[in-house]
């Protein structure tokens, strides 16, 4: 019968790959938390998903040119996703088609292009498997890249925080006062793509958005203010990363899906018991006071 130490600490004490996985996914949660909250507030929750697929053709093209280099694939993916984000954003501003529709078109197009490029490669390694990545295979270079993105992203989000909040809730005011709305939006998209690429390095494209959107959606049920939501989302993300790794080690499950699964359970608990609009506190308004 394994004790709490064996369950919660020993895997990380014994194995460096578990420590790397923990550092990478917690760093990812720190970077993705704030970005996810703003995506949620801007009603762009699915844009993250769309953009994560836009990484594919860039990464595949880089693979065809440079081989199995994670650095090249990350750069290629970053360029492709950023191009998609800016092009879709710009198009939706100058055409009557709404941003979500434009994003859907771009994302399906780049997914098709990516699959095409992957099959052009025709090499033995099924590139899709490489693209899915594994938090267990994070090496030093990927770890440094993920930590750098998380740090830069947190600093940038802090610097842009006020402008983002204004642009989010009162774009008319922003425009009326001559605020740089388009520039803020573009900067936000850059941060979004950088975080997605970092997530792609660790979790692969399939799971990249999980640590971004699920904690943010859960945080909505605990805090009403933006800063509070960011704090809660980041905490839920980091806790999901740790508990997901513990779960996957103990129950012999793949790590990436386990992390997102735990985040999903946290979301379900938040929907039920969250202090800000959760189901149970609404039905039993005083339940949380009685403890």
């Amino acid at each position: 019968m394994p004790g709490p130490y064996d369950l919660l600490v020993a895997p990380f004490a014994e194995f460096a790959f578990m420590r790397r996985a923990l550092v990478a996914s917690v760093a990812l949660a720190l970077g993705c938390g704030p970005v996810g909250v703003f995506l949620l507030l801007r009603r762009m929750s699915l844009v993250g998903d769309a953009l994560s697929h836009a990484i594919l053709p860039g990464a595949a093209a880089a693979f065809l040119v440079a081989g199995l280099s994670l650095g090249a694939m990350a750069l290629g993916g970053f360029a492709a996703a950023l191009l998609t984000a800016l092009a879709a954003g710009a198009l939706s501003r100058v055409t009557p088609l709404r941003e979500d529709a434009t994003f859907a078109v771009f994302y399906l197009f780049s997914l098709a292009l990516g699959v095409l490029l992957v099959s052009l490669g025709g090499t033995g390694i099924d590139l899709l498997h490489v693209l899915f990545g594994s938090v267990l295979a994070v090496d030093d270079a990927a770890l440094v890249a993920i930590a750098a993105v998380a740090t830069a992203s947190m600093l940038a989000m802090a610097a842009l925080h006020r402008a983002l909040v204004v642009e989010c809730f009162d774009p008319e005011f922003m425009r009326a006062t001559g605020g740089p709305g388009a520039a803020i939006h573009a900067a936000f998209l850059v941060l979004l793509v950088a975080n997605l690429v970092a997530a792609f390095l660790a979790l692969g494209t399939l799971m990249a958005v999980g640590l971004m959107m699920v904690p943010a959606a859960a945080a909505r049920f605990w805090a009403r203010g933006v800063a509070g939501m960011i704090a809660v989302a980041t905490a839920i993300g980091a806790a999901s990363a740790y508990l997901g790794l513990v779960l996957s080690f103990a129950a012999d499950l793949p790590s990436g899906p386990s992390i997102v699964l735990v985040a999903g359970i946290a979301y379900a608990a938040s929907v039920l018991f969250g202090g800000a609009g959760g189901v149970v506190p609404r039905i039993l308004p005083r339940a949380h006071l009685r403890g």
Partner: protein
Amino acid sequence: MRRRTVLLASALGAFAARPALASDARLKVVASFSILADLASLAAGEHADVLALAGPDVDPHAFSPSPADARRCAEADVLVMNGHGFDSWMEKLARSGGRKARLVLATQGVATIRARAAHSHGHSHGHSHGHGAVDPHAWQDASRAAQMVRAIGRGLGEARPAASPAIAAQAARAADELLALDSWISGLFAPIPKEKRRIFTSHDAFAYFGARYGVEFRAPRGVANEGEPSPADLARIIRDIRRENAKVVFLENISSPRVIEQVARESGARVGGRLYSDALSAADGPAATYQAMMRHNATLMRDAMVA
């Protein structure tokens, strides 16, 4: 007058020769993947042109045939597949091809090993090796490969009865060659004590090799053909490598190197090179033919055991 007779005779001769020519023409053979194609060429010798659908360095598990592949199958006289769920897409191609090419099952009559339950492949491409849980990688044992060559030879002979004796002779010669290879491999491992015959690799495709040549293989489940191994699996293999003080782990040509590299980093073993399990290498690689592949794998493993 005489001249004309000669001309007429040679014209008649040419006519008479035509049907014979048609049956002497080389068979068009399409095999599902590179290793099987090489075995088929060994069996057929000069009697066939052999083409592989999943080519060198291409993982047959992950292979999806293109319309051009379907056309190649439709134009073929004989299709060669491995069976046991390994290349079941070949059956679909054979059925949809229109023209009836003869489908030859290379593992017909070859004794099988059951896939170990703990290592059931679970290749996540909709065709797991769950078909009766038979391990399909029989060619990793050269004596079984010899039987496969004979089976392919029989199939080719049935497709072209006129050339059947010649093909049978050719297949028998090739089978003898593979039996020589078989004893060469056995001899390579003979001096190595049993407890040192242990190989850590990324894909559990060597059960037949292990059974035939007395080598024990350890592979983290799911590393090769699924994106995500479980950490408990990685932990197990890292503990094994540390406990047994193994010096070398192997990559395979068809699987992603990232996870096994992590295992190497963590366990202090070095990556000892690339084993070829389910696909040959390109022509300029170390495993361009079946026999080169078996020699390459066996030599790498021997070097790892004595390291």
